[in-house]
């Protein structure tokens, strides 16, 4: 099946490994992601905290581009892009007045027909493919890997656009089980990583990375698996910074679910682009004989 793919800026710059491993996975599953012919920045989640319609233009424009291409669904890897696109999609469904204002502003463009569905790649795996079926495609189970699934905020909040239960999400844990890993569950799975504070308040974010990763370690995890590029940066990069703040602390590796999925499907480790990570994820994989 060909799926229309919305990348977003982050997977084209600092989170390329998410895209590369995701593409490898989808190909192995017999589907194809086709990048949208024209797209712009999703507008980023934080912009929607201002209640001005201006910031809904960027996401709406992308939804219109999808319609231009005759598609009813776009799939994205990035939690933040998915969240922003979904929020705007919801806003124009719910408020006819806002929808009119936006359409009037974009007077040279086609009006949005509200026909596009925004899907996170995780939703595609869970709802369209199904974890049970995915499990059958696993060639190299992640046996012996003790991993804490980490959800962060943007795939779960606000509730209206969440892809899972905001308090007790299971989607990543279910995926991990399908891949043969041991799930380490802690309440820190939904603790905020610090998000954009990483720009201005590096220490604050480093301390949060420490709290989350330490909770995982205390519960017996060797690593964390997540989906969001922002969380990944904070837990991996700022987590490394935390080693300078907390004596004797050692940051555990952070994996994207697409990377572990690629390995479990028996794909070459090259597809994971682990060299872009701060904490080297390879030694653990070797120790557990995954690669």
């Amino acid at each position, binding site marked *: 099946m060909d799926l229309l793919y919305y*990348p977003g*800026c982050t997977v*084209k*710059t*600092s989170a390329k490994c998410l895209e590369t491993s995701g593409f490898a996975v989808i190909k192995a599953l017999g589907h194809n992601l086709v990048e949208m012919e*024209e*797209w*712009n*920045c999703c*507008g980023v989640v934080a*912009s929607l905290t201002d209640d001005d319609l*201006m*910031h809904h*233009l*960027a996401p709406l*424009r992308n939804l219109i581009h999808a319609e231009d291409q005759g598609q009813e669904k776009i799939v994205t890897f990035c939690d933040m892009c998915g969240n922003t696109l979904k929020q705007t999609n919801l806003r124009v469904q719910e408020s006819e007045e806002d929808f009119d204002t936006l359409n009037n*502003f*974009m007077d*040279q*463009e086609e009006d949005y027909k509200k026909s596009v569905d925004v899907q996170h790649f995780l939703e595609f795996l869970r709802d369209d493919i199904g974890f049970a079926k995915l499990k059958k495609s696993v060639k190299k189970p992640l046996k012996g890997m003790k991993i804490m699934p980490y959800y962060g905020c943007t795939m779960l909040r606000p509730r209206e656009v969440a892809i899972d239960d905001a308090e007790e999400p299971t989607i990543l844990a279910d995926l991990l089980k399908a891949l043969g890993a041991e799930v380490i569950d802690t309440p820190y799975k939904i603790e905020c990583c610090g998000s954009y504070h990483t720009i201005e308040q590096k220490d604050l974010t480093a301390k949060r990375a420490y709290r989350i990763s330490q909770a995982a370690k205390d519960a017996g995890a060797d690593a964390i698996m997540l989906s969001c590029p922002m969380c990944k940066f904070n837990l991996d990069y700022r987590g490394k910074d935390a080693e300078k703040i907390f004596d004797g602390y050692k940051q555990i590796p952070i994996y994207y679910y697409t990377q572990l999925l690629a390995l479990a499907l028996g794909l070459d480790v090259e597809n994971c682009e682990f060299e872009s990570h701060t904490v080297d994820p390879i030694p653990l994989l070797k120790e557990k004989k995954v690669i």
Partner: protein
Amino acid sequence: MSTEANNEAARQANAADTPEVSIVNIFVMGKRYQVPAGLTIMAAIEYAGYQLIRACGCRAGFCGACSTVYRKDDEQKLHFALACQTTVEDGMYLVQIPFVPASKAKYMIEDLKAEENTILSMYPEIARCVSCNTCTKSCPQDIKVMMYIQNALRGDIAKAAELSFDCIQCGMCAMRCPADIKHYHVGQLARRLRGKYIDTQSQDLKKRVAEVEGGQYDKEIEELVGMSEEQLRGLYNKREIEAKKKKKEGE
């Protein structure tokens, strides 16, 4: 012949002698002037008695000095044009924007690398783009301005360079952007990075530069410098035009 027909004939004959010039009303900074239709905005402003010291350069649509903003009498929309390229229309309210304040990042192109975040680190404000597309709608060159900013943001330098190629740095986009982006400097950086680091270098050019630097043409240049205007003109007229030569060879 009736008097009516006579009159009509006279009128037509008259019209043939002195073609009727229709006059349009334009407003320069709020003051009304009647100018002949068919003039460019620039010529019309001069016809109205202004002397252009700024807001005028090449008069050929290349320099970007003559940006003009106008709105027609009863129109809701604002328009953007180059004064030297656009003809006047009745009811235009005009203003020239000879200069746009837009600071340029300082860099040594040799010290940069063409990486995903190179442009973003020089012009971090591109991340503020809300995709309103106002810049695109303001561009007298019909450039997809928003899309070149968006490509710069996602680190696609080659595409940003390609989309901004026709930019003449008039600055209209930068005056209109709600995110205060300085688009044309961003496009210029993209093109410089692409030219220096992404496109394959022309081997012929390299060879020719080496020849020039090696002094191969010094004598010829000296001869040219010493010639009179007449000699130069003669030489110019006799020059060999490559395209013509190729055509001949083909025949």
